[in-house]
């Protein structure tokens, strides 16, 4: 391909790290079924246990509490299903509280549960999209079984007060789950520090392969299978092990752990260079979320361009080889723009005109310069086409 590509959609998914791809490939002969007793099977099992250890170390967990799944969507569904089962079994604690900005894997699942008659509450967020702890406190009660709050938001990049939320949940006797998919590899995530009972993650968001992820479930918490049919993962998650994918996840976890501090600073520097460059070159822009390093995932910049519609901006950028995402309704196939941005109180028009740039390991400052060269004329052009005041 001679087309220049500047990939700035790393919150969507990441390119596999070269080290991860090489490691997976180097283990091509590890094809045995890890549940088999023979040598090839035991070798595969050894590789899988190594990967389990790497993931455990990355999130400061005990190795025995790591369960491999197909990804965070499955992990989130599994957790919600556990508490659905408990409600079905007559547990008095039958209400689930999640934040209003959770990933669709959580929010759509609870909407489905709500339709089925289960008791669900959505906890609102403030103007940077951060969970309102006072509202969570108000919503709590001794009928709450589970509180689920993501560690960092995929659209706005806003880091959530998960430690505080976990403390509130526990004070009322509820369990706490965090979807850490976006945060892993960008900020330190420790299940012990957060006080999480459950945690979800996906390998493909931090340079691992797609289709593999983890559910962390602290020893002793309620746990029941979502995928039935086999004895893998202590009977909690059936399905033949995907050896190479799990090894890739292990390698990605190792890279993430070793490179975390450096990666954070590099991503934040690019994010800030792009933000400042845009603010200098383009009039009338609105940054969504926070510009405080402590409150924002380092690689995420979500920005609205009033009078310019997001899908048009995205596609004009794509013609220049710059790949981003938008909160515009037109890009989602629905008539409603990003619920995450609306939940933070953003004006509907601004949500339609929002663009998310998300940096990753393979971006450089040259990419920032390229965007700063191409973006301003595109915004000017889209705005000139827009139904301006006459």
């Amino acid at each position, binding site marked *: *391909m001679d087309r220049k590509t500047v990939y700035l959609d790393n919150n969507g998914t990441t390119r596999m790290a070269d080290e991860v791809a090489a490691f997976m490939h180097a283990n091509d002969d590890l094809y045995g079924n890890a549940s088999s007793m023979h040598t090839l099977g035991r070798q595969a099992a050894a590789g899988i246990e190594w990967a389990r250890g790497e993931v455990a170390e990355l999130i400061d967990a005990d190795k025995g509490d790591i369960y491999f799944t197909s990804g965070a969507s499955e992990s989130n569904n599994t957790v919600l299903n556990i508490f659905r089962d408990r409600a079905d079994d007559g547990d008095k604690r039958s209400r689930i509280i999640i934040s209003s900005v959770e990933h669709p894997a959580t929010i759509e699942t609870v909407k489905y549960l709500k339709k089925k008659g289960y008791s669900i509450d959505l906890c609102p967020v403030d103007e940077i999209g951060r969970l309102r702890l006072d509202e969570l406190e108000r919503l709590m009660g001794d009928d709450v079984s589970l509180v689920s709050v993501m560690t960092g938001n995929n659209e706005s990049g806003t880091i959530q007060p998960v430690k505080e939320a976990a403390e509130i949940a526990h004070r009322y006797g509820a369990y706490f789950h965090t979807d850490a998919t976006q945060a892993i590899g960008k900020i330190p995530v420790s299940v012990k520090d957060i006080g999480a009972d459950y945690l979800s993650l996906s390998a493909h968001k931090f340079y691992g392969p797609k289709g593999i992820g983890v559910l962390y479930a602290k020893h002793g918490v309620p746990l029941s299978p979502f995928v039935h049919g086999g004895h893998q993962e202590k009977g909690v998650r059936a399905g033949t092990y995907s050896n190479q994918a799990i090894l890739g996840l292990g390698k990605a976890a190792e890279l993430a752990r070793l490179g975390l501090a450096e990666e954070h600073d590099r991503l934040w520097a690019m994010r800030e260079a792009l933000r400042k460059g845009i603010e200098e070159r383009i009039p009338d822009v609105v940054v969504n979320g926070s510009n405080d390093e402590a409150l924002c995932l380092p690689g995420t910049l979500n920005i609205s361009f009033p*009078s*310019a*519609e*997001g*899908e*048009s901006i995205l*596609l004009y950028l794509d*013609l220049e080889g710059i790949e981003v995402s938008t909160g*515009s*309704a*037109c*890009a989602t*196939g629905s*008539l409603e*723009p990003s619920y995450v941005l609306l939940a933070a109180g953003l004006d*509907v*028009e601004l949500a*339609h005109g929002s663009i998310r740039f998300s940096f990753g390991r393979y971006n450089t400052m040259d990419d920032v310069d390229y965007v700063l060269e191409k973006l301003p004329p595109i915004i000017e052009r889209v705005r*000139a*086409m*827009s*139904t*301006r005041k006459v």
Partner: protein
Amino acid sequence: MAESFMAQWVYTDTVKDHFINPRNLWKEGEDFKADGVGEVGSLACGDQMRVGIKVKDGRISDLRWLTYGCASAIASTSMMSEMAIGMTLEEAYHLTPSMITDALGGLPEHKFHCSVLGDKALRAAIDDYLEKNNLPNPYKGTTAKIICECKGVTDQMIEELVKNGKVSTFDELQKETGCCTACGKCRDRILEELNECLHIYGK
């Protein structure tokens, strides 16, 4: 390396062409004195369109447009502008979204609603021209499609009621028109039309 996979563009090549090179755009500072102007949609809905027309000898002699909208909306309006110029007012009034999307080589189903604003704005511009010049409007009401056959409720009736703020829910629409009170078969299509109008004219 395995054989490479070529990505198609999101929409047809014709859509892409009109998106990259939109025709008859109303440029800022351009001296275009429109005989009639129509505007539909709202920024809050994510798409808004303004169409200005010049009329000579009963035909649209020139047209300019602006849109706040996605690639499909831009391409649809651009295509509409090419089709409408040279048409008689009557022909232009009966230009339909499917004529525009056909000319574009098709749009994905969920993008079809992006193409309905162009022809609506064009009709609004023709209405405006006729009204400004105190001319009779023989076209209004001639493009209606019956949706509720039992009660004879048309898409245009629904559009007018929503546009004038008289109706914003299914219950109100039913009360106002009696639609969907007999056989009930039209319910989905009524809802679809209502939602489309609510989207275009604001909630």
